């Protein structure tokens, strides 16, 4: 794999204002994404995992500028995305696409499949005429495993798995280099998930795609990713090669997350670390290390000083005071 970086995120922040009172004054901020840095190499899949509310979806949308970043730098193929004006950004969207979680909400119910998949072609003028457009749509639908007989149909006539294929086809139509997949299989039936995962893997090979794969299901992330990033309450706690992360998780949160996965094997007995309590609110996150109220190894320093996020060798990044002391 080439080590060329396709996407580089530096100190990205996304705060949502919390408004209250008669004058709708901003009284606080939800720190959905709070100072995260990572990169994605060309052709690889970076899995981004975390529990609900950890900010992983917000991170994905902020990278695509579907949400405006509060602060930070997003470098994509040498361009700082945050500096592009509206027109340049629109042009740039050809290169970066998104696949959504909900195959029902993400397709316009009043458009035919041909129009949904054809829309990106129209927007970017990728076809000279109607005939060429239709040929292109047919080709893409064929690529994702949908026959042309479906072209004139509306989304509600399809099953969840088929709808997700339509969503993939739409993203593929502009021939992007990066696809952000936001929980693309979690709304699907178990037996359908594998179909979509396999499809995504095939497409990656055939079109040399780079994926940012956002999910909460660690087994799926482990299967599809090359590297994995773990988020907790708006922060990255650990990023590493898949094997390293799953074999030797450094951060206590990653450790407990991995141990919490129910294994589909009744003979398998894991040493489960059951975390106490719930994920705190991102409006008022704990001081110091955000994980310290639930951390089984919390020390005094953890509640006072935020641990530094740094490389512990061979691209194994983590943010934990325990590691610093070792």
């Amino acid at each position, binding site marked *: 794999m080439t080590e060329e970086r396709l996407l580089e995120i530096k100190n990205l922040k996304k705060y949502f204002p919390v408004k209250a009172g008669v004058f709708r004054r901003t009284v606080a901020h939800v720190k959905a994404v709070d100072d995260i840095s990572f990169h994605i190499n060309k052709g690889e899949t970076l899995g981004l995992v975390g529990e609900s509310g950890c900010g992983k979806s917000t991170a994905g949308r902020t990278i695509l500028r579907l949400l405006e970043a509060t602060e930070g730098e997003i470098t994509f193929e040498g361009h700082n995305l945050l500096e592009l004006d509206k027109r340049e950004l629109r042009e740039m969207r050809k290169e970066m696409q998104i696949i*959504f979680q909900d195959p029902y909400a993400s397709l316009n119910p*009043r458009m035919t499949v041909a129009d949904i998949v054809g829309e990106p072609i129209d927007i970017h003028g990728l076809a000279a005429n109607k005939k060429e457009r239709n040929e292109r749509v047919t080709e893409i639908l064929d690529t994702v495993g949908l026959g042309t007989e479906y072209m004139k149909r509306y989304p509600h006539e399809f099953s969840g798995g088929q709808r997700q294929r339509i969503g993939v086809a739409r993203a593929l139509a*502009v021939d992007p280099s990066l696809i952000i997949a936001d929980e693309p299989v979690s709304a699907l039936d178990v037996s359908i998930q594998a179909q979509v995962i396999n499809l995504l893997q095939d497409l990656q090979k055939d079109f040399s795609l780079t994926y940012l794969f956002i999910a909460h299901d660690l087994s799926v992330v482990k299967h599809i990713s090359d590297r994995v990033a773990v988020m907790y309450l708006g922060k990255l706690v650990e990023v590493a090669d898949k094997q390293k992360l799953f074999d030797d998780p450094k951060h206590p949160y990653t450790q407990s997350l991995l141990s919490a996965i129910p294994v589909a094997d009744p003979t398998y007995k894991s040493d489960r670390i059951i975390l106490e309590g719930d994920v705190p609110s991102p409006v008022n996150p704990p001081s110091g290390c955000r994980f310290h109220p639930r951390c089984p190894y919390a020390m005094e320093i953890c509640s006072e000083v935020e641990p530094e996020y740094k490389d512990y060798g061979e691209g194994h990044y983590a943010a934990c005071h325990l590691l610093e002391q070792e």
Partner: protein
Amino acid sequence: MEWQEVLINLLRNKISLLGIFIILFFVIIAVFAPWIAPPASPRDPYMIPRAGWSPQPKPPNEEHIFGTSENQYDIFYGIIWGTRTAFRVGLIVVGISTFIGITIGTISAFYGGMVDEVMMRVTDIFLSMPFLVAAIVLTTILGKGLDNVMIALVTFGWMSTARLMRSQVLEIKTEEFVEAAEALGASDMRIIMRHVLLNTIFPVVINASMRMGSIVITASSLSFLGVGAPTGYADWGQMISFSRNWILGTQGNALQFWYTVVFPGVAITLFCLSWNLVGDAFRDILDPKLQN
């Protein structure tokens, strides 16, 4: 659900079918007015011919089958040509005010922030004025005449649509398919036209259909109050205002002048009812909660 499906459902629904029939009936009357009630002077067909100058209405007879009103205006002629007036007022006022409402509501919701704030406060100001009073005042300022009535009705009639549209767009705007279109690089215009409007327009259409009837009533009220069409103009509201002094007949014969109220009254009621029936049926068909 698609347009064709909606149409088929509308035609299958007995209530809306009845409404559609009544509307069609009025359309036919409006189109064939010159043949049903040939105008006395073709240059000015909307002026109701007079059968004399006597102030007292005359009951239906062979020459004037619906009778004549105060000052001998022919009621039948007024009703027939009034149909055209009703359609003209309804379509123009509802059309323009709906268009304004959709535009303001959509822009307001889609862009949000200051744009939304300013537009919605303006809407609030217009909403805070009592509709009928405001319309009367504006018509009085502009001067008597149907065009001025329409201007007044449009000026004070777009707010409900704007509000409705705004809430609709706010809901649709957060849908993932709108986000998907944005991610594809679609322009704002394209997103609004193809994704937002397409999914929000139905409730507004229902609303517009309901307003067709109520606008005609309001226009009639203005005429009834004397700030509408010029005297003698074929307009249902005016027809009723002619009957104002004759609602009660002479002593011992209270219903003596029934024809002055009943004919224009029935016309207005039927017109209004038909649009409401269609609007109601429309809503039933489109409301997914009522579908099962």
